[in-house]
């Protein structure tokens, strides 16, 4: 473990998979949406185009969406592994994946306005590390597009206008409002990663982490599982529809996580992931053996 060229090549392949192959759970949810929409209407045409696009991207190994997003990465590692080396490997992989056109050069120098040209920049990619007891490294990543990132939002409760107090009913109100505010601008139908609690930094990270969960999983916390089901149903009743054209398919999934909070703070943080819900994972064991994760 820790042989740089090997890790880099594995990470490039991880990025390629994320950018060009939409995961099976997301494809299934899009197909479900297509069955729900009338044929010939704009919502149906949009979902047909999306599904055709997913297949084409996979076939020719090209990016599903030209906005290949920010690579947001979570790495679990055993004790003694250099996180600095892993981070450097991942940055090298981002540059290489950009050169191979799996990624668009997507990092802009905020002060000068010029594009760094190679996909990497200050804070891009964003890599989180966590040590664990297992002997292997596990890398999970999402490619988080900018259009959907712009409609992500954070509420602080109570919110008088929404009639939202500091409880799960208040959370429901905030999240549904976020869906209406987003309209089609985040490339609906989207997936919501929600964090209840936390502070302004930890909450956004935790909301993004929810996006790693399979769309059909069940939240182990019963009241959150119920909330997720209700938000998915009611979110789709709002009628925003694919691309905001109107229709029955506004959300593909809602995943809610929770962090503890300060007595004074009650944040509801919503990350909106576009229909191109690009996520991928890989496990590297102590012999360097690579297993791709679904």
């Amino acid at each position: 473990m820790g042989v740089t060229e090997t890790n880099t090549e594995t990470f490039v392949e991880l990025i390629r998979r994320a950018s060009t192959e939409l995961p099976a759970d997301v494809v299934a949810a899009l197909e479900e949406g297509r069955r729900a929409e009338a044929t010939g209407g704009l919502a149906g045409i949009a979902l047909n185009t999306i599904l055709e696009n997913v297949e084409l991207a996979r076939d020719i190994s090209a990016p599903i969406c030209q906005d290949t997003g920010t690579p947001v990465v979570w790495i679990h590692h055993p004790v003694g592994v250099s996180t600095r080396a892993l981070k450097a490997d991942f940055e090298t992989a981002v540059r290489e994946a950009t050169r191979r056109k799996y990624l668009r050069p997507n990092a802009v120098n905020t002060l000068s306005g010029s594009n760094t040209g190679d996909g990497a920049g200050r804070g891009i990619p964003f890599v989180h590390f966590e040590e664990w007891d297992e002997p292997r490294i596990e890398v999970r990543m999402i490619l988080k597009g900018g259009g959907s990132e712009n409609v992500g939002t954070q509420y602080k409760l109570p919110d008088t206008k929404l009639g939202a107090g500091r409880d799960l009913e208040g959370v429901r109100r905030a999240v549904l409002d976020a869906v209406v505010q987003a309209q089609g601008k985040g490339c609906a139908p989207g997936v919501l990663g929600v964090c209840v609690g936390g502070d302004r930094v930890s909450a956004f990270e935790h909301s993004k982490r929810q996006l790693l969960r399979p769309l059909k999983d069940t939240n182990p916390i019963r009241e959150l599982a119920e909330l997720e089901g209700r938000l998915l149903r009611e979110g789709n009743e709002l009628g925003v529809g694919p691309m905001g054209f109107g229709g029955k398919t506004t959300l593909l999934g809602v995943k809610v996580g929770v962090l503890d909070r300060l007595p004074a703070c009650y944040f509801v943080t919503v990350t909106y992931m576009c229909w191109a819900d690009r996520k991928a994972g890989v496990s590297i064991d102590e012999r360097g053996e690579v297993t791709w994760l679904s």
Partner: protein
Amino acid sequence: MAELKLPVSEEKIRALKVGDFVELTGRMITGRDAAHTWLMKEFRADVAPFMKDSVIYHCGPVVAKNDDGSYDFVAAGPTTSIREEPYQADVIGRYGLRGVIGKGGMGAKTLAGLAEHGAVYLHAVGGAAQVLARAIPRVERVFMLEEFGVPEALWVIEVERFPVMVTMDSHGGSLHDEVEERSQAKLRELLGLSG
């Protein structure tokens, strides 16, 4: 579904209505955030002929450079249009555009500009970067590549049967306004809030 050749007349554009599905064939130009500011700073006579009676596509593509120096679009879906709201109506008027392609729709100022100048807002399917790149067989030339970088440069492209939906027309119609109103009403109903 109608096929629309570019460049296009004002008459043909005025005949389009919200909800129409159209396929575009001909020459158009891409431009997004940096391009719109730049186009408004002063009149760009070199770029203007590529915009007159054609459309501007809000797109930041992935582009491959071939050995012979030519370019190919590798991935080319629309970007969110609302960021160009402060400039769009003026860019349409100044350069004689007949349409804008993007995603997410635009606001009141652009809607008024469409009616005034005889133009439409065409919605491409967001994220459908491969289906749309396939409809762009040729890249003719590029402006401001060095200065703006690949996503923000102005690319002159040939398109063939490029699929778009009319979501804002030149008669004040906006699908985005309709859907937003309906979803706001439904939200108030779900939350038990009054008007």
